[in-house]
Each structure stands twice: as structure tokens, then as C-alpha cells.
């Protein structure tokens, strides 16, 4: 089958799997596989995308098949309180004893609103959100070196230990990191919001009766 046909089938099976998500896994896999074979056979040998879509339509809407299975329909996708808090805490949760950011991460990962890669992005870009960005900026602007001199070991035996520094290269890298972290801390939450809103709008359209 051509790529359009394969993609239509793949999307249908994915929606079906989601609609059947409340079934035990082995039964769900069995039903999805049975329907895959059914659609493939109905579409005929080497089917066009149109043939596959016709076969899919005769086979039935995922929500309809799920209700036949006795599976309650999964709750519709919403941009709810959990999602709002997730985005807000990811950005600024770090300022609440850092715990806030972890709560944001937990809300992010338990939400059904985002794909895994979007959740990964939300977690690492940057970890700790704005707090991390500020911290990077702070250490980048801090004193280059701090030296401590201990005396009293004897004449001419002052011991001076200096820490920090590393020179201009380190400063530049930290500055770049700070800029990137700031950008990410603002842009990534916005990105997550946009993606979820689009997804909610699309799912409302599809499942409206």
C-alpha cells in the first residue's frame, strides 16, 4: 500500500487503541490486531488511500467500537487546571523552594495532553525553569576568583588558595547558557500551551457527533 494509505491506517489504529485504553492490554491488542486484519482485507490487494479510507469507514469509528467493547470512552482532552499549573510551575516553580518545579514536572508527565517528546522537552529545557536561568546568569556575573589567604605558618609561609575563575572561556559559555536557559524558560511553556490548545481543538472537532 502507498504511504498515504499506510498513514491513514496507522492513524486509525492509533485512535482505536486510545479509545480502547480502558480495556486490559491483551484484549485491547487483540481487538486492534483483528481490526487491522479486517481493514487490510477489506481494502483489497495493494490498496490506494481511498480504498483504505473506505474500508475504515465501513469498519467504524473508534468511539463506536469502544462502546461496543463495553469500554467507557476515555475522558475528552481538556486544557484543565492541572495543565495550567504544570506550565506555570515549570516556568516559575523553581522559586518555590525548587519543589514547585518538581510538582510542575509531575503534573506534566501525568497529563494526557502532551506527547512524550513534548514532556521531555518541558522537563529539560531548562530543568528548574526560570530559576536555573537566573542562577546561570548569577554565577556568570559573579567574581572571577575568590582567594583566601591563611597566615601564621611561619615567616614567608602564607598560604593562598584561590578558587573559581577558569577564565574568559568559562564566562562566555555560562553567558551563552544563561541566554539559552532564559529563552527556553519562556518559549518552552508557550510552546506546550500552543500544542495542547491545538490538540484540544482538533479532538473536539473529530469526536463531535
Amino acid at each position, binding site marked *: 500500500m502507498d504511504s498515504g494509505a499506510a498513514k491513514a491506517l496507522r492513524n486509525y489504529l492509533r485512535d482505536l487503541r486510545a479509545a480502547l485504553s480502558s480495556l486490559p492490554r491483551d484484549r485491547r491488542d487483540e481487538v486492534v490486531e*483483528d481490526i487491522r*486484519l479486517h481493514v487490510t482485507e477489506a481494502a483489497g490487494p495493494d490498496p490506494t488511500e481511498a480504498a483504505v479510507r473506505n474500508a475504515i469507514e465501513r469498519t*467504524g469509528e473508534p468511539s463506536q467500537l469502544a462502546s*461496543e*467493547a463495553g469500554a467507557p470512552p476515555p475522558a475528552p482532552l481538556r486544557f484543565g487546571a492541572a495543565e495550567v499549573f504544570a506550565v506555570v510551575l515549570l516556568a516559575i516553580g523553581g522559586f518555590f523552594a525548587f519543589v514547585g518545579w518538581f510538582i510542575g514536572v509531575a503534573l506534566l508527565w501525568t497529563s494526557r495532553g502532551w506527547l512524550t517528546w513534548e514532556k521531555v522537552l518541558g522537563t529539560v529545557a531548562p530543568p528548574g525553569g526560570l530559576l536555573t536561568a537566573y542562577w546561570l546568569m548569577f554565577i556568570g556575573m559573579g567574581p572571577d576568583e575568590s582567594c583566601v589567604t591563611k597566615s601564621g605558618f611561619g615567616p614567608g609561609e602564607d598560604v593562598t588558595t584561590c578558587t573559581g575563575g577558569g577564565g574568559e572561556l568559562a564566562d562566555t559559555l555560562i553567558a551563552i547558557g544563561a541566554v539559552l536557559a532564559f529563552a527556553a524558560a519562556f518559549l518552552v511553556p508557550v510552546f506546550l500551551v500552543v500544542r495542547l490548545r491545538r490538540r484540544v481543538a482538533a479532538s473536539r472537532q473529530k469526536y463531535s457527533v
Partner: protein
Amino acid sequence: MRDMVPRADALTQLRRGVLEHCVLAILERGERYGRDLVNELSEVEGMVTSEGTIYPLLSRLKSDGLVETTWQESPSGPPRKYHRLTKAGRSALAAFKVDWAGFTSSVDQILKERTRG
């Protein structure tokens, strides 16, 4: 009369209620694979709204132990999954036939009864 169940809905519910026993009855005549069942059921008007509904139903019958499945080679393509009644399935069907006969005759009686006196 707004509280009455609309005609289409009532029929749909009736069909839903008997669908799985109709599947068992067809399987009593011999093992079938999915598409066969869909075709035979389609002969009854409105029994099959969409072809795919047979599969979750069969999955449920199988997990209830009323139906078992085997794979068989097909002359025209990939192996096919055939469904057949188990002993429990036969008993369930036999019990349903009795219940159905009693139920339909009672309902017929009520529908036919002329107003008294």
C-alpha cells in the same frame, strides 16, 4: 409522550441485547471467521451498524469463555482467525433460547390481548 424511548433507540437497544446470542447461534452451525460473521449478521436488517463492532464483541465472548479461537491457513492471504463455541457457549445459547422463547411469547401475548370487557 416525550418520555417514551424513540423508536430508533428502542430497536437499537433490542438488537444490542440479542446480538451476542445471535453470534453464538451462528457459531453453533459451525466455526466462522470475523468477516463471515459480519456477512451473516448483515442479513438481518440493522444488526450490524459497522463491521468492526463484531471484534470487541468476540473478544468479550472469548474472555467470558463462551468462544474459542484458532488460526487457519487461508488460500488467499494471511492466516485467518476462526471462532467456535465452547461447551460453556453451547449451554449459554441453550439457556438463551429457552428464555427468548418464553419472553417473546409473553410479549406477543400482551401485544395481542384485546381490551377486556
